[in-house]
């Protein structure tokens, strides 16, 4: 492929060294801050968002299926911790691989590693269920159907305190939230506490590295190439023998599983799972991250997720919050953070749709169009 648009291709060794340096810095980062520092807190959340961004990137970036209901998987993942790592089901007494402290509590208490696997599995199934009806739909209808699923799950989360499963057991705790959630308790390590945030950070970083590795390997695999082919031209991909159903469902399942893992982590880290966390805006927040970084570009997504997450937790509330009032306007910037994300979305799509750190193939698609495009009419495949 010809090099266009000044697309940078660094030698393989340089790339590798850069990645290694970035990971090394990421590992030592919390040592420069006190154990309970706000920076470690914010970076932990940012890393959890990176996992979500990488998950959504599989669906939107690789396979080109616009998912506006990604928050559903955050919800399912978080509720998995709510159900299986708390005293929410007080009538049950199930303890699997948990420390002394949790053993004494009523409720269902599973080890975090188990919960992550369950969350990933549940979300993969949910992803397939949500994906199934969208298989024959065109792109924009997929977006709306996924949005609708996300909203339906939110309604279930809010009203779940009225839904009885068996006996006293409810589906969710609604807006009140399920709290407290067990702290993560990994084998060979002490139980995590809310005083020392470093272990949380490193756990999140480990999740990121695992997901990153899987993401890169998937991209370069047969499946990954099938996703990209599908994104560029569904009809051509199908006629080259790519099984559309299986390929699309795999994208949904993989993307959802990552979202679930991150959701499970955040459930435990934030120590609460309540329905108000799962609004539509969150889906757009994650979408804005990967668009900022560059759809389909793994490193772009990492940068974009970190950047937007820190903009959200640091730049807007701490640095820029007083700017409007200093200008004589009567509001705080925090109130309009979603407006800012919306503005970023528009700005990026109009000025640099390929993102900050673009994937080369995507860049070409965006600037020259895929072969099926006409000037005004986009050929879609109903």
């Amino acid at each position, binding site marked *: 492929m010809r090099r266009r648009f000044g697309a940078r291709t660094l030698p393989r060794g340089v790339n590798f060294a850069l990645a290694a340096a970035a990971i090394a810095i990421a590992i030592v980062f919390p040592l420069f801050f006190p154990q309970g520092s706000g920076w470690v807190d914010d970076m932990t959340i940012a890393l959890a968002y990176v996992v979500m961004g990488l998950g959504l990137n599989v669906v939107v970036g690789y396979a080109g299926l616009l998912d506006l209901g990604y928050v559903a998987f955050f919800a399912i993942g978080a509720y998995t911790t709510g159900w299986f790592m708390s005293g929410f089901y007080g009538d049950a007494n199930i303890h699997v691989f948990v420390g002394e402290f949790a053993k004494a509590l009523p409720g269902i208490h599973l080890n975090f590693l188990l919960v992550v696997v369950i969350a990933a599995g549940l979300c993969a199934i949910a992803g397939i269920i949500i994906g199934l009806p969208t298989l024959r739909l065109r792109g924009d209808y997929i977006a709306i159907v996924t949005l609708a699923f996300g909203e339906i799950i939110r309604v279930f989360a809010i009203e779940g305190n009225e839904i009885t499963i068996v006996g006293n057991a409810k589906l969710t705790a609604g807006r009140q939230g399920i709290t407290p959630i067990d702290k993560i308790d990994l084998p060979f390590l002490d139980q995590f506490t809310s005083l020392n945030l470093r272990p949380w950070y490193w756990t999140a970083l480990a999740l990121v590295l695992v997901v990153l590795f899987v993401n890169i390997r998937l991209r370069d695999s047969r499946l990954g190439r099938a996703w990209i082919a599908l994104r560029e031209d569904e009809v051509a991909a199908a006629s080259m023998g790519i099984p559309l159903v299986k390929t699309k469902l795999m994208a949904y399942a993989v993307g959802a599983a990552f979202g679930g893992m991150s959701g499970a982590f955040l459930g435990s880290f934030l120590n609460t799972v309540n329905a108000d966390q799962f609004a539509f805006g969150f889906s757009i927040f994650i979408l804005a991250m990967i668009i900022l970084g560059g759809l389909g570009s793994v490193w772009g997504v990492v940068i974009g997720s970190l950047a937007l997450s820190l903009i959200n937790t640091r730049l807007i509330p701490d640095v820029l919050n007083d700017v409007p009032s200093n200008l004589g306007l009567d509001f705080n910037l925090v109130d309009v953070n979603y407006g800012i994300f919306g*503005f970023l*979305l528009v700005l990026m799509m109009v000025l640099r749709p390929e993102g900050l750190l673009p994937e080369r193939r995507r860049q070409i698609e965006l600037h020259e169009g895929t072969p099926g495009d006409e000037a005004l009419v986009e050929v879609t495949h109903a």
Partner: protein
Amino acid sequence: MEASTSAPTPPPALSRGFAATVQDLLSKYGLIALLLVLPVAYGIQDLRDDGNLAGIANNLLDGLSNGAIIALIAVGYTLVYGIIELINFAHGEVFMIGSFTAVAFWGLIGLGLGSSVIGLVLGLLLTILVAMVTCGGMNVMIERVAYRPLRGAPKLAPLITAVGMSFILQNVGLLWLGGSPKSVDDLIRAQDNLFTFIGINVSRADLLAFGVTIPLVILLTVFVTRARLGKAMRATAQDPEAARLMGINVDTTISLTFLIGGMMAGAAGLTYALYQTTIWFFQGFQAGLLAFTAAVMGGIGNLRGAVLGGLIIGCIQQISDNRISPSWTPAIVFAYLILIMVFRPQGLLGEETREAG
């Protein structure tokens, strides 16, 4: 927009098995049956409990008048989708801004609870004009800023900017009137009963909703079918390249479509403020999704379909609000949306887009 009966006519059912016949029937009447579930179920319940159908009839009337407002918004979705195949996600927010503008403007010209009838009528006529012009202009600007630069881009790109615009406008509304619902002067005493006909209470609000929607929809239909610019719109919807070759200015025509859609949303905004007497920044998101569902239900791109879909969605919403619980309404409406999109994407009256053509 050709008559979109292009769906392949099934071979005579005689030569096929029973299962195939059932499938045919389902695909033809399944959606209609599904839509009748709620009213019929609660109608039967009313008959059993009260011995008459007044309860469900009142729900349906409220639903229809509510749906008339949704229909006005749905028209905007369907027109825009018909012409550039874009879900104008920000359209619901344009409607919300319409409500806000209307309330601000009638406050500005001093309409209040004490205004005389003539003053009220004239003032509200002026307000509806202002709301329509504001929303129409805003919609045109949105298209200019956020959609036009992306004409040649993949189809999902403008959809993403549309979502972005929607969030921007939502936050404009948030800054404008704050985060909680705000009640406004009940200028027309909306809930006053005008008359009761066989147990059905017709309120002023019902009359208002029909009184705004029916003339506007008739005007719009005449414009699209008869006027030169309306014909240009239909031509562009069918084939923009050919329309361009015939000397139609495609860009202007698209702007015009956004203008008309925005104006309808503005009118809906005023009607909503008078009807509900509460406005808040989130009303646009909810109403927008309802209206989009309505547009898909009627067959996207299809004007009459959008109106029909709006009325039906209004009824579903009203019955669900009234009989089940308002908090479940979004889930019920979205379930309908998913079922329709998956099993009958062409809607009730048939889609009128290039793909369907």
